[in-house]
């Protein structure tokens, strides 16, 4: 993958790297370093003014908005630091959202939602409102929502940032397990060196440029 971003100020420049299938990649940097922008560009949420983002040979930056949306609905998913689960909805409805967006029929959704909730050990909370959950449970719910449609690329923006270390480890294990089992890409944006250390590769970003890269899947 290769990305560049210019705005009124240049957020990213000269950023060029490739991520092979199944790699767990950490994008490490301080806040304001451009790591979040890099994630937005890679997921097609943001556009590059120069350069290209290629996924399986397809140029994301030249695709129509409609196709980018479809691509995100079927191939990608997100985990956020502050969970972004819908408090007023049940866990079931929260997990159902990406499937509805991807036009999966009501009949097929049921089994997929149940499998995803089971994978994050939240089956018995199916009918609970998301606002009644603890922080760790909310993030597990967010993971269920992220993996329910079996995405090939999973973006996690500071997934453990709002959690204590034990819960954080649990969440991390769930994410890593999903990526390993499904040969999916997990791209973790973090400033936590311990979490980054457990990833296959670490890309250090500073002032919109790649400072250094470590590791990498063979």
């Amino acid at each position, binding site marked *: 993958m290769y990305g560049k971003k210019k705005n009124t100020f240049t957020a990213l420049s000269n950023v060029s790297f490739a991520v092979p299938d199944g790699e767990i990649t950490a994008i490490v940097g301080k806040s304001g370093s451009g790591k979040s922008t890099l994630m937005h560009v890679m997921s097609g949420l943001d556009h590059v003014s120069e350069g290209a983002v290629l996924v399986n040979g397809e140029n994301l930056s030249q695709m129509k908005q409609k196709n980018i949306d479809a691509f*995100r609905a079927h191939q990608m998913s*997100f985990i956020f630091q502050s969970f972004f689960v819908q408090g007023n909805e049940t866990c079931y409805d929260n997990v159902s959202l990406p499937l*509805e967006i991807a036009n999966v029929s009501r009949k097929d959704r049921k089994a997929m939602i149940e499998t995803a909730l089971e994978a994050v050990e939240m089956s018995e909370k199916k009918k609970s409102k998301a606002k009644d959950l603890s922080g760790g449970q909310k993030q597990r719910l967010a993971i269920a929502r992220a993996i329910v449609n079996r995405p090939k690329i999973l973006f996690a923006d500071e997934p453990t940032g709002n959690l204590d270390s034990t819960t954080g480890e649990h969440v991390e294990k769930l994410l890593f397990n999903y990526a390993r089992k499904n040969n999916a890409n997990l791209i973790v944006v973090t400033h936590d060196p311990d979490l980054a250390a457990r990833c296959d590769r670490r890309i250090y970003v500073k002032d919109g440029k790649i400072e250094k890269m470590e590791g990498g899947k063979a």
Partner: protein
Amino acid sequence: MRRADILARAGRNLRQAKVRTLLTALAISVGAFTITLALAAGTGGKQYTDNLIKNNGDASSLTVVAKNSSQDSSGPKKYGANESNASQGLLGDADIKKIQSVAGVESVTPMYNVGATYMVGPNGDKYDTSISIKVDQTAVTLGAGTLAHNQPGTGSVVIPEDYVKPLGYGSDTSAIGKAITLHVDKTTIPGLPTEGKDMSFTIAAVSKKSDTVLHYQAEVLLSPADGKAIYDYQTPAQAANQYYGVNVRVASGTDVKTVQTTIEKKGDYQVFSLQDVQQVLFTFVNVVMGGAAGFGALAILASIFGIINTQYISVLERTQQIGLMKALGARRKDIGKLFRYEAAWVGFLGGLIGTVGALLVGLFNPMIAKALNLDKGTELLVFQPLTSVVLILALVLVAVLAGYFPSRKASRLDPIEALRVE
């Protein structure tokens, strides 16, 4: 996203803001309520008017009188220039023939002026009476007995309810089939002693007062044939065959209006039809209905701003949800639809509440009839299911249009910005 899924999600979102949804819907329901009631009152008013007309006249009958020369704008006519009876304010046999020749005219009956000096019932007491000939087929509200074509047959009469007791018949029903005697004098000029004779009739029916009859007159109704007999007996030969008017029956299936204009063109005639009256009354009902519906429309206009406001607040509140949906691949039009469908639900709810409220008011129909002293069973509010369905659908459409700007704001939100909101 599938329409059904968006619709379900829109419904769930509204349930999460119950009070706000209800208040917005109530604002719309005020308009729906007013319009439904206005239309119901209009329909009821027209039905009532229709009823009123039927009870006060016969739609297929026309009344023809001679045109009064004072109504002519062309100035006075030279004496002898016009030989027609019509110029003297009376109609003659020539006029009857003329009118009879108009296509669509079934029969022409002259309106004879007749009078009776007194009437006598079984108890032998003499009473003053007024008699009249039933030339048209206007409906008569009956207390007892039956009438074919709303006219008494030859040799029989209809007497008013008020006459039953004084004449000594006991009750309305027991009067049917009994005899009544009318004394008629040869001249109708009062004060001069003249010869007269008793005529006996059978009572065919007893008429009674009804609220829908505008001018009920307590009088004995005679058949046209008997009326003519009395007229021939009473009227001096030199005044014979001159009538102040004739009643024209229009054949069924013929347009009354056409016949009316044709007769008017035939000579100096003035023709009155019940349709003229009906049109005036309907116009009145329509104006009242339109006015009330207009107020309802204003209420709906005001509620549109309520919907827009509520939806804008909703977009602001749910920025994060919108951002998440977009990040998960929801398309602009999906987000737009979500908010428009929410507005549609609000419109539907408002329409439903207003319509049901108006229907509940309809339950007071008997009380309204009583308060206005109308006949029992009269319904002034008549609801039509189709109108309600159309109204609710229209409100849904109005709500969707009102939700357009907020939904556009939602669909244009930048997901990155939206997800930055904590």
